[in-house]
């Protein structure tokens, strides 16, 4: 199981707002314990999804240069149940962005129905995050991989409409990706630029826009 609680961004405007999707699937282990025989998405993981979406939005504003942590859930309200097969749309609006922290308002909708609202507060760790506290568990290439997986550089723009590009950030750890097995075989992400910039998968597998015809 991977700790990814958003599937994809559909909107990402630097320093302002973001929209992300979370498709709830019976394939997720946790749903078989919450609750046995009546699977529904736990509110804690809905909050985590909103925090991941909001955290990436805030972190981008700081140039992805340092740790931004969820410092506090000021408020969270839930209004119903989300079941497997449903899709949540997380909408994040930045309330405050300062050098020392940020606050966002987040909502989770299922269709037209509001499922949850939250106020989340992020603290910027600054120099404190640079202090060594054992082995690093989350490195730049992990972050870059995550940003690519959830499509930040596919939809991300600045308020003036210009595209966000992975090459704008110091995310590639020089030399480290080439030494890493599978990534090395594929060429480092730093060399390739983001998938969004080159779009090889989109070109190879264009979305089928026509409706499905019956099997022939």
């Amino acid at each position, binding site marked *: 199981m991977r700790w990814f609680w958003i599937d994809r961004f559909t909107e990402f405007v630097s320093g302002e707002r973001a929209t992300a999707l979370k498709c709830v699937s019976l394939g997720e282990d946790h749903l078989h314990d919450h609750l046995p025989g009546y699977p529904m998405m736990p509110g804690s993981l809905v909050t985590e999804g909103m925090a991941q979406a909001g955290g990436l939005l805030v972190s981008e504003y700081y140039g992805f240069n340092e740790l931004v942590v969820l410092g*506090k859930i*000021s408020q969270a309200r839930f209004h119903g149940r989300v079941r497997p097969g449903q899709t949540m749309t997380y909408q994040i609006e930045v309330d405050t962005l300062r050098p*020392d922290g940020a*606050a966002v308002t987040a909502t989770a909708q299922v269709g037209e129905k509001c499922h949850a609202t939250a106020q989340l*507060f992020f*603290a910027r760790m600054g120099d404190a995050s640079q202090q060594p506290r054992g082995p690093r568990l989350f490195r730049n290439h992990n972050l870059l991989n995550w940003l690519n997986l959830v499509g930040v550089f596919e939809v991300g723009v600045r308020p003036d409409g210009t595209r966000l590009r992975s090459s704008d950030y110091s995310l590639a750890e020089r030399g480290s990706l080439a030494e890493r097995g599978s990534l090395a075989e594929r060429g480092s992400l730093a060399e390739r630029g983001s998938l969004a910039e080159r779009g090889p998968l989109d070109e190879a597998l264009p979305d089928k826009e026509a409706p499905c015809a019956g099997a022939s």
Partner: protein
Amino acid sequence: MPSQEEIFEKVREALVDALGVEDDEVTPEATLQGDLDAESIDFLDIVFRLEKSFDIKIERGELFPEDILTDAEYVQDGKVNEAGIAKLKERMPFADLSKFEADPVVQNLGQQLTVRDMCRFVEHKLATA
């Protein structure tokens, strides 16, 4: 310039939202950490709300000067020295530090900061804006 009552009401609203406390718990005498259970992360949240509510700019450490409380020049054996007290008075003209001076253990400052102090802080900010 809003009246003292208006300032108190907005401060109360900020504290209720930031700390999840009830309206009637936020009295002028209530201490932020002792009575309202504010933690260090809450101070930044409160600052954000005050900035928005009063349209003011509050710099880091302005409301709660943690830089003084962690500076070896001003703190010895866990207590703020005379130079530190003088510095705190300079930086916190809005706060009544007389009780803290009697036993200037670093942790006491946050414990003794009251809602009234916070209202005075806002008044001070609005007056000097």
